[in-house]
């Protein structure tokens, strides 16, 4: 009965005036009640997601003074800028490298965790989740102190072994490495916990059957575990890709996009040109560049998930 169809209530009662009874029937439908219960959330999503999204699209099509419509002019302008081309490259490098590393490390950690018996697993699980539950801005500040140009804790350790200081945030590629490292540190627990949940849902009988057929550990991994986890892996990767592409805190706190713009990602560059330099339409256009990339990724990932779900159902 949860299909939204009407439920006959008070059938024995004599029907009142037609209008009133229609309204009453409408109000008593499960679908109506469901809609009304969801309405606060729908309004929140509309107010805080849909409206800002469309407003951003609208803003991105205005001139700098926001007095004239320029169509796709801001997008065209950005694509021609060398710095913005660098930003596209860096955003992709940052997001793809970080997500791949998080997925790999998360996968390994989930397996290790899965094999820890009883109470100990809970303790380790809690400990490994710590990076993910600490507010990102706070933990990134701590990382920044460790990378700090003048008083780096890492450099202090290196100095103890007679190794010279490393300009962690002062050289482009090293700074890129640092921003990706912090993102991986922060995001890996999410992958781990998702993969762990997926691992726990794989029936033991499948492994037993594989063992009877003479499958080794690697064969079990490739022919039992991975196929059973594919949907979870795909959705986790997609979710993380969206969040990582939109990352702002890490780059903003660690490098502010420097040195020489070599760590800017879409969000930090949008903030710099939109808020700091007073060109809100250009900033909006910049931030919207993420949209087609993520929509493209989402389309293929979700299509794969749907296809596999249908295969399982069949």
């Amino acid at each position, binding site marked *: 009965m949860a299909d939204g169809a009407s439920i006959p209530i008070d059938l024995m009662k004599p029907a009142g005036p037609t209008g009133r009874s229609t309204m009453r029937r409408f109000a008593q439908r499960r679908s109506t009640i469901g809609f009304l219960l969801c309405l606060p959330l729908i309004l929140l999503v509309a107010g805080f997601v849909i409206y800002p999204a469309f407003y951003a699209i609208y803003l991105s099509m205005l001139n700098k003074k926001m007095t004239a419509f320029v169509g796709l002019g801001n997008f065209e302008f950005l694509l021609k*800028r*060398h*710095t913005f081309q660098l930003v596209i490259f860096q955003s992709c490098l940052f997001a793809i490298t970080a997500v791949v590393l998080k997925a790999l490390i998360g996968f390994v950690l989930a397996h290790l965790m899965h094999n820890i018996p009883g109470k100990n697993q809970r303790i380790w699980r809690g400990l490994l989740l710590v990076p993910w539950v600490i507010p990102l801005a706070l933990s990134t500040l701590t990382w920044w102190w460790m990378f700090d*140009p*003048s008083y780096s804790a890492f450099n202090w350790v290196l100095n103890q072994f007679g190794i010279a200081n490393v300009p962690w945030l*002062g050289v482009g590629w090293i700074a890129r490495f640092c921003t990706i490292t912090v993102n991986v540190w922060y995001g890996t627990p999410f992958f781990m916990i998702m993969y762990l949940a997926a691992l726990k849902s794989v029936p033991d009988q499948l492994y037993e059957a594989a063992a009877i057929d003479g499958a080794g550990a690697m064969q079990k991994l490739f022919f039992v575990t991975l196929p059973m986890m594919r949907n979870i892996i795909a959705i986790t990767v997609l979710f993380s890709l969206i969040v990582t592409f939109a990352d702002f805190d890490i780059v903003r706190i660690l490098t*502010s996009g420097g*040195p*020489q713009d070599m760590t800017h990602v879409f969000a930090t560059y949008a903030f710099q040109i939109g808020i700091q330099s*007073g060109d809100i339409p250009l900033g909006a256009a910049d931030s919207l560049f993420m949209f087609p990339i993520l929509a493209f990724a989402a389309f293929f990932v979700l299509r794969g998930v749907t296809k596999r779900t249908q295969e399982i159902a069949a």
Partner: protein
Amino acid sequence: MTSRMMTTVKAGRPTRRKALKLGVASALLPLVHIRTGRAAGKLSIGFWDHWVPTGNAVMQKQVEAWGQKNQVEVQADFITSNGNKNLLTIAAEAQAKTGHDVFAFPTWEIHNNVDNLEPMDDVMKELTGKYGSVNHVCEYLAKIKGHWMAVPTSSGTQYKGPCGRISLLKDPGGIDVQAMYPAKAEHTALSDKWTWDAHQAAAEACKKIGKPFGIGLGTTSDSVDCIGTLFAAFGAELVDKDGNITVKSDKVKQVLEFGQKMVKVLPDDAVSYDDASNNRALISGQSALIWNPPSAWAVAKRDAPQVAADSWSFPAPIGPAGRFEPYLPYFWGLWNFSKNKPAAKELIVYLMQRDNVQARCNEVAGYDVPPFDSMLDFKIWEEVEPPKGTVYNYPLRPFHKATPHIAALPAPPDIAVQIYNRGTMPTMLAKLKSGQSIDQVISWANDELEGFTR
């Protein structure tokens, strides 16, 4: 009296004449000013959250005193510039067309929000009539198409000249800063020899003993202000006042040639400096000189008293085109959607009175620089210690023979703001530091500037 009137009214018969009188009286009633509690309405102000905590308290006190006197309910919020919270609030209020009545706008935000601001010519006329004119940087940033769109304030306004260690600059730097810029109104012959070459020589000497000048090549304002001043001292404009890109000029080449020498003596991590890095470099004793307002000295006074007692603020060195000092003014602007404009203007005038400006300046140990030259004689700059007179030369005065400057001036402000916030000038030097040639750097800058001048 009231009861007698009521009795009379009750006693009298309603007539056409009485009805007419009552009607006229009712119509005229709103024209009569009745002063009751909070009669002049409400006012909300977004002040800059001062680095010095007592800076907020004295402001709050002044605002409350004015509110009580004028029967206006004033709400004062102190909004931090950390994380650009103030810029975000300005952007949000400009979009929503609601929020505070008055806001503290940093440097470029007047131009960014000019369409939403109320002209303040009347306020400026009153203030300049009483205290004299303000400098050209204030005009450049807030006088738009002949109209003052905001009022330059002292709260948050700062110079960012050098603050150096007296002992280290003397030996090995070879500069006696206290003799060059003593704590009295005097122009010295030594100050004429304070050139960018002398700055370079001292930086080289200090670098050799492991105390490099803490000058950053990042994209935050301390780096931009210092390097912007260097460009100005060489007369090197990236974009001229008419908006033409002038980066391919001999003067730019000249400053970059100097920059090639300069970057070699800066800290190894200069390109990743932010606005706190130079402060830490001075306070920790690792640096002989930084370019900063006295906030670094103030923290040193608390955390490293021996460093504070050895620090001295003084004007920037002179270059082929003159002596320029980084100057960052704050402005108080009135949103044109404010519902209480007259009260807002009255409050701004009140807060900019000499006594009030001085009281606030004293409270923050001279950090805030008044926009009017006539107010540059406050005793606080003589009295602050240790050492006595350390910030005497912090605010520029005529005998310093220096010009206040903001990086990217004289480019049109809508272009200049991008040059400033994208850190184009320090990035040019950062590229030199990474080994790029002058031609490569100019080519990169030209490409960037083409984007800014769209």
